């Protein structure tokens, strides 16, 4: 029997194809027609690493790669998968997958996209000797442990087998039903042979198979801009509707915003905190608020005495109920965030806002005071270690909301709370990773791929890489792994939500709100839509 997910995905692809042909198969978008020759100038940030799919782990480089490459699948605006390079992805047991590619696809240097383009790229990404930052994305594949172990010289994962030019098989080390969902993430993109021969050179002038390509050698002017032009050979759901995309590098959003309102920048994907009160006035009807798969939380480590055990649990609940999420999202973000009801994000398949325990995330000062009192009776709070909330001051604008959360807790519980800024992201990350936090830390997650599991597994399972709270709950771990190996998406989601109810009780982290992309565009463009991950669908934007 074929795995149901595959047929579902193909169904989606079919619908997408229908939608395109309904439009006459022309090159205009489904909405109003616009100038398809305009080069769209959008805000970017300097990629932190060479543009190699397996070595890029941040938005600045990621959004460029997403236009340069096409993976097996891609995600539409709602986060639903659509086939790109894949003809089909089939499995019967969620552990062994057979992947067939479409015929006649090429990289922009003329090389055909074959099964080895994927297998070699993935092996390259996983092998320890290449030290690729996204290597852990391949950890589900059989043979990853041998290839990725420290000092290993193994170059291939045993779970990947090329069958013929257009077919390869993947064997996972255990059944994981959401594996196909991940394949649209940049780490899984194919790479031409030249990339693996000389990665440094390739990283400066990448050659892909996506809707766009570099505008010649040196299109990446460091810290200034990256010029992309449409790839004429690309055929698929993301065909370019404009004459090119230029990523202009900005050091901060406030500056980019000034360029936006004076029409020097076409699209800005994040309105800066300082202009959240003004942008709707400044931009007229040229703005959008689109929820995306990301959230904001504060994690409280269990290694802190005040926050462990039964009393700790009561205090966590008290803190959570003392935070007036509605008011903060309204005043500080001008409604640009949605108060959280659980630990994932509403745009995901399987999301539920009425899980058992979600009342712990509702503002309830009386209950909060009562819970705090109960905790005091169990075990008095060590006042020499007051609650702090750590954040980094160099990236993102966290100070304002942290201060608002601090004030809310202080006002309702009457305890001492302070924000604790760190000068650099690096510093606060190191402290968290080493388990040396002296208080809470702002956390949060941006999804790599649209799946509930992506919000739970890497953060709350025992020993997980981003488990800053050092949460460890056998039952939770079991529920998550059951969810991953479930036979159907529905069963999987159910298991994930069961696991979430444990989190809502224990509150290893206190969910605050879901991210909403607040973006705007200039007078010169139209058809601006944002994707499930908060990044605009650049290929669909047209000139006016």
């Amino acid at each position: 029997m074929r795995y149901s997910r595959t047929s579902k995905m193909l169904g989606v692809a079919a619908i997408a194809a229908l939608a395109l042909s309904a439009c006459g198969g022309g090159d205009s978008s489904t909405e109003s027609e616009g100038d398809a020759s305009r080069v769209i100038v959008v805000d970017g940030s300097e990629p932190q690493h060479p543009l190699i799919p397996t070595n890029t782990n941040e938005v600045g480089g990621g959004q460029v790669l997403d236009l340069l490459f096409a993976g097996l699948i891609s995600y539409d605006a709602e986060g639903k998968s659509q086939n790109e390079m894949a003809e089909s992805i089939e499995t019967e047991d969620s552990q062994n997958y057979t992947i067939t590619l479409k015929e006649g696809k090429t990289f922009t240097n003329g090389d055909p996209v074959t099964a080895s383009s994927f297998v070699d790229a993935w092996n390259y990404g996983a092998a320890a000797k290449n030290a690729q930052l996204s290597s852990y994305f391949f950890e589900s594949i059989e043979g990853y442990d041998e290839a990725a172990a420290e000092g290993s010289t193994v170059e291939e994962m045993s779970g990947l087998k090329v069958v013929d030019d257009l077919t390869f098989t993947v064997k996972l080390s255990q059944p994981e039903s959401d594996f196909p969902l991940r394949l649209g993430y940049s780490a899984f993109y194919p790479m031409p042979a030249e990339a693996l021969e000389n990665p440094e050179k390739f990283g400066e002038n990448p050659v892909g198979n996506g809707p766009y390509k570099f505008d010649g050698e040196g299109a990446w002017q460091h810290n200034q801009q990256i010029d992309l032009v449409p790839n004429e050979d690309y055929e698929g759901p993301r065909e370019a509707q404009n004459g090119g995309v230029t990523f202009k590098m900005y050091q901060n959003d406030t500056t980019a915003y000034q360029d936006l309102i004076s029409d020097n920048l076409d699209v800005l994907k994040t309105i800066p905190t300082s202009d959240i009160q003004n942008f709707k006035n400044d931009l007229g009807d040229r703005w959008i608020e689109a929820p995306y798969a990301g959230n904001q939380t504060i994690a409280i480590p269990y290694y802190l005495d005040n926050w462990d055990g039964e009393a700790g649990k009561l205090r966590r609940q008290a803190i959570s109920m003392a935070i007036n999420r509605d008011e903060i999202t309204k005043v500080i973000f001008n409604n640009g965030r949605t108060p959280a009801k659980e630990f994932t994000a509403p745009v995901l398949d399987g999301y539920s806002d009425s899980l058992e325990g979600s009342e712990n995330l509702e503002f309830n000062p009386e209950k909060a005071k009562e819970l705090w009192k109960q905790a005091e009776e169990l075990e008095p709070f060590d006042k020499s270690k007051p609650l702090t909330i750590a954040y980094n001051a160099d990236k993102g604008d966290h100070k304002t909301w942290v201060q608002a959360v601090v004030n809310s807790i202080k006002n309702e519980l009457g305890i001492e709370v302070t924000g604790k800024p760190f000068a650099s992201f690096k510093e606060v990350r190191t402290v968290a990773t080493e388990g040396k936090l002296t208080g809470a830390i702002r956390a949060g997650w941006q999804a790599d791929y649209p799946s509930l599991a992506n919000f739970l597994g890497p953060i709350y399972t025992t020993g997980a890489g981003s488990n800053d709270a050092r949460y460890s709950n056998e039952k939770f771990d079991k529920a998550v792994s059951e969810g991953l190996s479930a036979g159907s998406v529905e069963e999987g989601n159910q298991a994930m939500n069961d696991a979430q109810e444990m989190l809502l009780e224990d509150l290893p982290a206190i969910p605050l709100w879901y991210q909403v992309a607040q973006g705007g565009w200039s007078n010169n463009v139209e058809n601006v839509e944002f994707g499930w991950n908060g990044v605009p669908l650049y290929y669909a934007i047209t000139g006016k």
Partner: protein
Amino acid sequence: MPEIENPTPSPRRAKTSAYPVEHFVADVSETPVAATDSKISDDAPTSLWREAWRNLRKQPLFIISAILIIAVIFVALFPGLFTNEAPNDNCMLSNSDGGPAPGHLLGFTQQGCDILARVVYGTQSSLTVGLFATIGVVIVGGLIGAVSGYFGGWVDAILARLGDIFFALPLILGAIVIVQVPFFRENRNVWTLVLILMTFGWPQIARITRAAVIEVRNADFVTAARSLGVSPFGALVRHVIPNALAPVIVIATISLGIFIVAESTLSYLGIGLPPDVMSWGNDIFAAKSSLRTNPMALFWPGLALSLTVLSFIMLGDALQDALDPKARKR
């Protein structure tokens, strides 16, 4: 290092000294050194400083600035007398960016804190940072600059180059490192900030002092003092420094304001005062995010800062007038 080739002062550049010297040069035998000496010590205002003080007391500029400064210090010491609000514990988002209300004369910040209370309570840390960083910088930088300018030679070479190294060091780099010294990491406060600003502020004053001292040390009254047997160090302290003070005072009074504002910039970079310490700098930084909707949140701490700086600049002007012998003649 500048060295004098011709120690005889050029006539056109004769700086008037504090001593009433007539425009002729008497033969040394005609005017016994001892007699000159005794004559000076008999005069009442021997000390330049004491005379300056006498002068100062009469100046309206000085009186106004002194009153202002005392007022600011008073607010810093007893903030509770000026507001009933507990400024850090009563910030309600429901008041966010609100205008003046009964009991809240100046309105509210974006976080819904009472602006008046924040400005009043912020005085202490801001003044401490500004005042002590300035004092520290003037003492350290002034001393190093004076010594290096006066003695020249290898002393100057070493001290001036040391200043160059410190001046070129990025402030943030040094600040981040100082802040993470274990002692400061857990109790970051105004004194950490004073130390940071001192460490990176002294070379500027040092260079200015050095230049002023180089200019003055060639003046005839210094040469005269030296030839009268005053020790090099004595001449430096009693004659050179008082006459080289003018530019130092200018830099110091402006730096006072710059330091208070620098605290704001350091907060912006995450290495300033902790967010629960109230200061004008912290408030100015916080107000930036609501600049277009609630400019008053920026205006009030900015005004407090301006008034403080103004009073110190006026004090500096008065002091300069008092110390400048030429201005005194009139």
